[in-house]
C-alpha cells in the first residue's frame, strides 16, 4: 500500500499538525518507507489469534468515590499560555 499526498494532508488535518507542501513530500517518502517495513506483518496469519488487551499482569484497580482534590484553580491555570483569573482562554471557535 502506498500513502499519497492526499492521505498525508488528511492525517495532518486529523492530527492538527499543519504541513506545508515541501514537508508533505518528505513525509510521504518517509512514511512509505516505514510502511513498507511495517507491512512485513502481512506475512503472518493471525486470523485465530486473540489480540493482547493489556500487558500489565494485574486487574483493574478501583478507587473509592471520595473527593480528594479541592480547589487548585491557580495551580491548574498557572502554566496556561493565555488565561484570566477564572478561565483558560483560546482563540474563538468557528462553527
Amino acid at each position, binding site marked *: 500500500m502506498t500513502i499519497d499526498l492526499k492521505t498525508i494532508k488528511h492525517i495532518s488535518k486529523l492530527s492538527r499538525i499543519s504541513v506545508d507542501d515541501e514537508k508533505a513530500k518528505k513525509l510521504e517518502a518517509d512514511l512509505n518507507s516505514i510502511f513498507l517495513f511495517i507491512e512485513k506483518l502481512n506475512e503472518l496469519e493471525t486470523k485465530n489469534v486473540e489480540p493482547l488487551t493489556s500487558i500489565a499482569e494485574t486487574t483493574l484497580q478501583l478507587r473509592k468515590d*471520595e473527593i480528594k482534590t479541592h480547589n487548585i484553580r491557580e495551580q491548574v491555570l498557572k502554566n496556561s499560555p493565555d488565561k484570566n483569573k477564572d*478561565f483558560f482562554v483560546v482563540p474563538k*471557535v*468557528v*462553527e
Partner: protein
Amino acid sequence: MSKNQSEYLIKRNNNEYEVVIGLEVHAQVLSESKLFSSSSTKFGAEPNTQVSLVDAAFPGMLPVINEFCIKQAVKTGIGLKAKINKKSIFDRKNYFYADLPQGYQISQYKNPIVGEGSVVLDLPSGEKKIGIERLHLEQDAGKSIHDIDPQNTLVDLNRSGVALMEIVSKPDLRSLEEVNAYVKKLRSIMRYLGTCDGNMQEGSLRADVNVSVRKKGQKELGTRCEIKNVNSIKFMQMAIEYEANRQVDVIEEGGSIDQETRLFDTKKNQTRSMRSKEDAHDYRYFPDPDLLPLEISDKFIDELKKNIPELPDEKKKRFIEKFKLSAYEANILVSDNETSKYFEEVIKESDVKISTNWITGELFALLNEKNLEISESPISAKNLSKLINLIKDGTISGKIAKSVFEIMADGNKDPKKIIEEKGLKQQSDPKELEKLIDKVINDNQDKVKEYKSGKEKLFGFFVGQTMKISGGKANPKLVNEILKKKLT
C-alpha cells in the same frame, strides 16, 4: 400533518411518512467524585475550581476509575432489564476541542458495560416496549463559553471528567409523545435507583437525537441525521419535528438525505449541519492503554441486584393489585419515586381511595401552583394522613377539609390543631343541629309551605341555610337526616 396519539405521520402531497427516532441519552452518574479523578462533581461551582491535574490532562497524569460509578452503571443496567457484561473495555475517542483537555474522551466503544435491555412506556394507547441497545460509561467534556469575550472562547473544565452513562435506544420511537414518555420513564427509573438525578436544567440529562423518515409501509430505515446534545424534552420534540419535516421536504423534492451531525438552534427553532464536525469525524477509537479491561464478578452483580429497589413497573403492578387503583392512578403515583413513597406513607393509616384523590387532586395542584417537587411539599405525608382520617371519621366535612388544607399549605400545621384553634370541628350533635334547623324552618315558613306543596327542589335550600348559619361546620349527613324528618 396528522397527530394521532398512536401514530405520528407527516403528509406531503399524496405521501405519508413515518418518523423513526432513536435516542442516545447522556445521563450524569450521581457520584461525589469524577469517573477517573477525585475532584468534585457538584453543580454550580466557580469556574475551574473542581479541576484536578488529571481532569486538565497534565503530562504524566493517569486515570484511576471510581468504583461507585461502575456500580451505578450496573444498577442502571439492572433497572433497564439489560445484560450486564462481565468484561468491558475503556477506549479512547480521539478528537480535538478546547474543552477536551486530553484530546480524547475515555468512553466504551466495542465492549460496553451494559448490553441489550428494554423500557416499557405507558402511553394513553397502552404499553409499548422500547429496546435499549447498550449503556456505556464515559467522561463528560468541559464547557466552552463563547458569549462572554467577543474575541476569545473561555474554557471551564469543572465538568471535565464527570461520569456519564450513555444509554442508546433502538430506533423504536415513533412520535413526539413516545419521546416524551421514554425520556420521562428513563429518568424515573434512574431516580428510583439513585443513579442519576435527571435534572435537565443542570445538564444531568441530555440526548443526541437520531431522526430518519420513511414512507409509510416501507420496511427499511431511511438515512438518519444525529442532532447533538439537546437538553430538554421540549427541545427534543421541536428538533425532531423540524428535522423530520426537513427530511420529508428533501425527499419530496427528489433529493436524498446525507448522514450527518446536526445542531439544534433553540433560538431559530431549526437544525443545521455541523460541517466542522465532519472533517474530524474519524475518532480513531482504540483501547485506553492506561486502563485494563474492567472485569466484574457475578458476586459483584448479585450484591447490587439484591439492593435494587422496587421499580416503577413493579410498583405499578402492586398498586393496582393491592390497592385496587386504576392503571391511570397507579401510573401517576409511581412515575416518581418520591410520589410513590409519599403515597405509601399516607395510606399507612388512611383510606386508600380518599388518599389517592387528595394526592392526585389537591396536593398535585398545590405543588404545581408553587412549582415544588413532592419532596419539598409544605404538607407532610403524616399531616395529610391525619387530615384524611378527620374526613373519614366525620370530624370535618370535605369542604372544611379544603380550607384546613389551605392553612396547612402555609406551614405544615397539624390539621387537628387548626380545627381546634379555628373551631372548625364538624357539628354532629343532633340536639345542637335540631336547634339550628328549627331556626331555619321558623325563619322560612313560606318556603316550608312551598316545599310541602310539592316543590321538593327546595330541600337543598334548607340544607344550605343550615350549613350557612353553622358556619359550614354542620355535619351535612346529619343535617339531611334531621331536615327530612322535620319537613315531613
